[in-house]
């Protein structure tokens, strides 16, 4: 994927600002689920892992496969744990 560096930096800065903006006032009760939910999003590195697993070279591919394992733990575990916690908050 061709993405010029300057454009990548622009996207980065805008996304950082957006992140600061969306989460300003969060009730204390939701701190844990929010943290755990955003942690699950950081598992988005699965994109990179899948690309890497398909990359050239045995060494590169092996690291990629290990990355897929680690990222999937993060994604699946992260979303499920978050849902478990939020389910308790919603019961009433």
């Amino acid at each position, binding site marked *: *994927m061709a993405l010029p*560096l300057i454009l990548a930096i622009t996207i980065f800065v805008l996304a950082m600002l957006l992140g600061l903006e969306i989460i300003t006032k969060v009730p204390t009760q939701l701190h844990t689920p929010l943290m755990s939910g955003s942690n699950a999003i950081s598992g988005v590195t699965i994109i990179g892992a899948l690309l890497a697993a398909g990359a050239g*070279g045995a060494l590169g591919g092996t690291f990629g496969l290990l990355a897929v394992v680690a990222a999937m*733990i993060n994604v699946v575990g992260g979303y499920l744990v978050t849902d478990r916690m939020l389910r308790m908050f919603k019961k009433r």
Partner: protein
Amino acid sequence: MDQNIVIAAYLLVAGLFVYGLKMMAHYRTARRGNFVSAIGMAIAIVFTLLARDDSGVWAVSGKDGWTFVIIAAVIGSGVGLFLAVTVRMTGMPQMVAMFNGFGGLASALVVFSECFKHWGARGDSDPVHMSVAIGISTLIGWVTFWGSLVAFARLQEFLLSGRPTLFKFQKIVNFAALGAVILLIVLWGMFPAAKLLIIPIAVIASALGVMFTIPIGGADMPVIISLLNSYSGLAACATGFVLKNPGLIIAGSLVGSSGIVLTRIMCIGMNRSLVNVLFGGVGAIVVAPGGGAGGDKRVTSWTAEDAAMCLEDSSLVFIVPGYGMAVAQAQHAVKELSDLLEERGVQVKFGIHEVAGRMPGHMNVLLAEAEVPYEKLCDRSETNSELDRADAVIVLGANDVVNPAARHDKGSPIYGMPILDVDKARTVMVMKRTLNPGFAGIDNELFYQDNTAMVFGDGKKTISDIIAVLRQ
């Protein structure tokens, strides 16, 4: 598949993440928000696979590579599923730390793969950008992984206790290591062909991850957990720079910056700057016996019967939980006590300090597990505005967040930290195992006040005893 379609899909994914996170900041929509964000993740995975399909060959063994990728994904999902389903609510902080670590590890491995992919080939269009981005990504990824492992060990009390681990010249060693790693990254930028530089960078980054986290004690865990969370996002973001992938950059920086917001909230709750938490090593300070409370160290000791009688005569009771409640798994007993008191016409509320426990919102999760209605949970300012009307306060396993020294004792390490003013209530009952200072090792003058009574023993057992007396 057309690259433009893939980019459009990533934009949609980013939108779903933003929308999901926003929904997660409100009660009603929180669970759906998490679901929206999960759908975004699923779309990201599917489109990445579709995009790969075009370029054909999977690495490990040609077209069979699919099988390996699927096996890897199934193993990862299986482990994640198992951990998420089996973890107990009290183990939540370490579980979040663990998942966080795996995110950082994945990012670090992705750039390893990228670095070794075309070993010796000179095909990169902008090698300087690549080597610097790989260097930064390696640094953040390994720091996140090892930092999270240390946090996990500290929370699980596996190999590490709750107390900070300090060694001589710690700060100097840390800064020297950080300087060395930055120097290596700069060098790599100057000589992009020296790909083996990734190894010393990874090794020093791993050491840094450990060294930065071990001086941080149990009481500061909410800060470090949110900070590591932020790092794992930044690691993904840096990986996005390596792969020139906008989806990774956007999602990674969202997590990075929202993690910073949460870290700031935690720092405010402790009245400490981030620098102070990272380098302060609070808890290493041992207050000399006889110091704090001016020599007169007599405490009033109550039995469960005394406590029960006092509670029965009250009209408003506040329960202030801390990490001790989590350790004793007392949340269900507390809920039972609160129901029993309400039946007898006593109003019961919970005073929650934002840094009580070991992660942001820890107490809320435990009380939610025990099905305490969240209208009963009051945050710090609500609690403080009502405490002077309270007839009794039960301090259950909380310590520093109720220490009045924070208000007036300039010599105290926690001076200036916003606390719950439980000493303003008519009677304070502190339920604790012993008089020993808590995790942070700071003596608490609340214990020696005239309106304070200590009820010694295991939190859960004490509460159950009180319930038994009330039922008689």
